[in-house]
């Protein structure tokens, strides 16, 4: 069961900290904390946990910088707890760690700030061919799929077809792809993920879904297999905006196909895909965000 994160408006957060709303906005610019989300009307929404952690830290702090540092440290304990739970093969404790992370953050931030970094840390510590990694990756995959099922039903008319080019749920990119699907689903978009290895019956799915964009995610499958899958989609649905998410680091198909390279962070990637759907003719993003530390080594080890 997922707990509901409590959010505060700017005036409420400022009152809790005994400062003015202007001061709170100045802190956001200078310290990057507390980091608000935006409501549908683009108003700032602060998570209660972040503000409360800062309020406690301010009482014991010598400067706002040190208080912010202490508050961040308090929040990062969720990551340590999750890594500890997964290292100890304790599923209940891992679920509890995510529950407490969700009490302080949105689902998106809990995934990006706690779940994915914890899995990265575990992968670096044990290796992605280890039993602890397999255990943790399967748990994380299950958690993300469960969250996806609990996401509100699609409210937009848009749909995204994801060509899943990851190996399986033990592929380090697979979790980022699941997170990307989750974020898109939570934004009200219909998402269907299909493995790029299977083209049989693909036309029926594409006709039924009528996607507005295609995202090819992962870098495990060979370029030929990916190209064949993309060709079948194009034959059925016509030329659609296409983007690559966590593709092979050596592939450079961006200019030849006009596909966009999405940033490796699932949240930023999902924002760019939504923008792509809203304005398919917008200039493609030329700058390719760097892969996270260790991604290339992990892929090479995997190959």
């Amino acid at each position: 069961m997922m707990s509901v994160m409590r959010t505060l408006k700017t005036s409420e957060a400022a009152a809790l900290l005994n400062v003015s709303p202007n001061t709170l906005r100045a802190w956001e610019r200078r310290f990057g904390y507390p980091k608000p989300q935006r409501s549908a009307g683009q108003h700032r929404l602060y998570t209660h946990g972040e503000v409360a952690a800062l309020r406690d830290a301010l009482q014991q702090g010598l400067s706002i910088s040190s208080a912010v540092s202490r508050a961040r440290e308090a929040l990062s304990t969720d990551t340590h707890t999750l890594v500890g739970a997964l290292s100890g093969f304790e599923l209940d404790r891992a679920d509890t760690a995510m529950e407490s992370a969700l009490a302080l953050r949105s689902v998106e931030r809990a995934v990006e700030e706690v779940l994915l970094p914890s899995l990265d840390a575990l992968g670096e510590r044990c290796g992605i061919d280890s039993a602890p990694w397999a255990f943790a990756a399967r748990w994380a995959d299950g958690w993300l799929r469960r969250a996806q099922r609990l996401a509100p039903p699609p409210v937009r008319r848009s749909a995204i077809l994801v060509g899943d080019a990851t190996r399986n749920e033990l592929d380090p990119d697979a979790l980022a792809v699941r997170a990307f699907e989750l974020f898109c689903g939570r934004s009200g978009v219909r998402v269907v993920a299909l493995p790029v290895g299977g083209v049989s019956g693909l036309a029926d799915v594409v006709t039924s879904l009528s996607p507005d964009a295609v995202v090819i995610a992962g870098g495990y499958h060979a370029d030929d297999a990916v190209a064949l899958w993309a060709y079948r989609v194009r034959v059925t649905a016509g030329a659609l905006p296409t983007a690559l998410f966590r593709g092979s680091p050596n592939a450079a198909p961006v200019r030849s196909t006009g596909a966009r390279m999405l940033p490796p962070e699932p949240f930023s990637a999902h924002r760019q895909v939504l923008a792509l759907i809203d304005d398919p003719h917008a200039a493609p993003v030329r700058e390719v965000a760097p892969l996270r530390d260790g991604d290339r080594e992990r892929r090479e080890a995997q190959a």
Partner: protein
Amino acid sequence: MRRLHALRPVQVDERGQELVSFCGHCGQRPHPLATPRPSRVCGHCGLGLVLQTAAALAPRHDEPFLVVDTSLSVCAMSAAAEALFAIEETEAVNKHIADFLVPADANAPSAENLLTLLVDVASGSREACTAVVRPRQEYGVRFWARIGPCGSPRAALLVLS
């Protein structure tokens, strides 16, 4: 009545020394007659916490200063110190004081005492004192530093002049 208006409450420490408040970022002192604020955040700049120290030690608003805890980590850096060391407080916090300041004369008998001095002051076993320091990796530049306790929580205040 006019004379009564000129009176102001004075806070003193356990030794009877006058204590003054100042912002850990801009160095501004709250007006002595101003209504106490519910929060410790500076009402002038909003970017620092209000700290207390002895009046003789308190920095003027243009004097660079740092606040160091017992582990010798920088906990606060004034705006003037940010300009002096060309670093933002957000980056300086939690770094060791020796990354910024070292004794001016490494051969002086008191040189090795700077860090001990700061620990002693921050832990409350020593009162205010002075030292000559220089920025790390800088030669020919020296500062006369006033070092004394501040808080709360208790820490060492190092004012460069």
